[in-house]
């Protein structure tokens, strides 16, 4: 399971390094809507591979019962969900600005690409928020429903009796 964790980590680091190398190879223009739009597209294109790395990390941490790491991953996912939502809003605003410069024959393809990126990012944001909340609850002690249900010395459940 430790190997699975490392594999997930390697995938995430490799993809992040590749993304950074691609971004740094060009002129950085944070104030330009077209640049921000392109960066968002680059990140969206890598979503599938990044999600695979993420699943490997999560699965290994859950199997190994590393509660601290589960909480750390939960916090990271909640942060990423908020960052993703902010990025999505900015991306949609940038798309409106960039659309003005797109030639008429390319408008349909541009709109399709924007809808696809927004759809995938929206789904990822919701899933990350959900995974973050579930993992945070799971990483903090015993689940709510089971609290106080430890076996009593006086009262026993019928299912626990050897003759039942």
């Amino acid at each position, binding site marked *: 399971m430790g190997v699975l964790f490392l594999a997930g980590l390697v995938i995430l680091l490799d993809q992040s390094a590749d993304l950074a190398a691609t971004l740094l190879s060009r002129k950085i223009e944070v104030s330009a809507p077209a640049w921000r739009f392109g960066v968002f597209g680059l990140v969206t294109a890598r979503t599938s*591979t990044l999600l695979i790395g993420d699943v490997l990390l999560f699965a290994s941490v859950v199997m190994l019962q590393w509660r601290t790491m589960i909480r750390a991953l939960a916090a990271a996912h909640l942060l990423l969900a908020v960052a993703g939502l902010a990025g999505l809003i900015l991306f949609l605003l940038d798309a409106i600005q960039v659309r003005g410069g797109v030639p008429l024959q390319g408008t349909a393809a541009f709109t399709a690409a924007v809808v696809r990126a927004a759809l995938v990012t929206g789904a990822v944001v919701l899933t990350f928020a959900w995974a973050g909340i579930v993992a945070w609850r799971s990483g903090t002690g015993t689940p709510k429903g089971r609290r106080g249900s430890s076996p009593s010395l006086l009262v026993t459940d019928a299912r626990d009796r050897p003759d039942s």
Partner: protein
Amino acid sequence: MTPIERRLLPVLVVIGSIILLNQGLDLGSIALGADLETSAGRVGLIAFLWTRAPVLFAADAFLVLAALRLNWTPVLAGLAVGHLLVGLAALAGAPQFLADAGRMAGSVTLPQITGFRITVARLLAMLLVAGIGGLIASGSLVQALRGGRKAA
């Protein structure tokens, strides 16, 4: 199954679905732009599909594993049908792909012919593996469904 697993396995199903959706939309946009009337266009589309195969296999594995662990009958039934359809499509497409590659081979220059042959062999193997694997997986999923119903 631990409570943490029970809570997080549905997330795995959703993540697998998102990956398939993302890749499916990407492949769809490429397929719409490809010239499927020509042999080169069709072979190019299969080659593009091959570049996405590892991610698709991983997403598929996530979905199947999570659905089996959770014993989600509707998801398992959907996956069985999906695997059957993909398997049949891959097997049906293999002869067409081989015919297209044969037509293209005449226009490939001599220094490139070895590379072309290796690529065609790889893609044909992928189609056969996807086809046979899809049918086997579909059968196994149907068996798992029957086993789940009997246990219930």
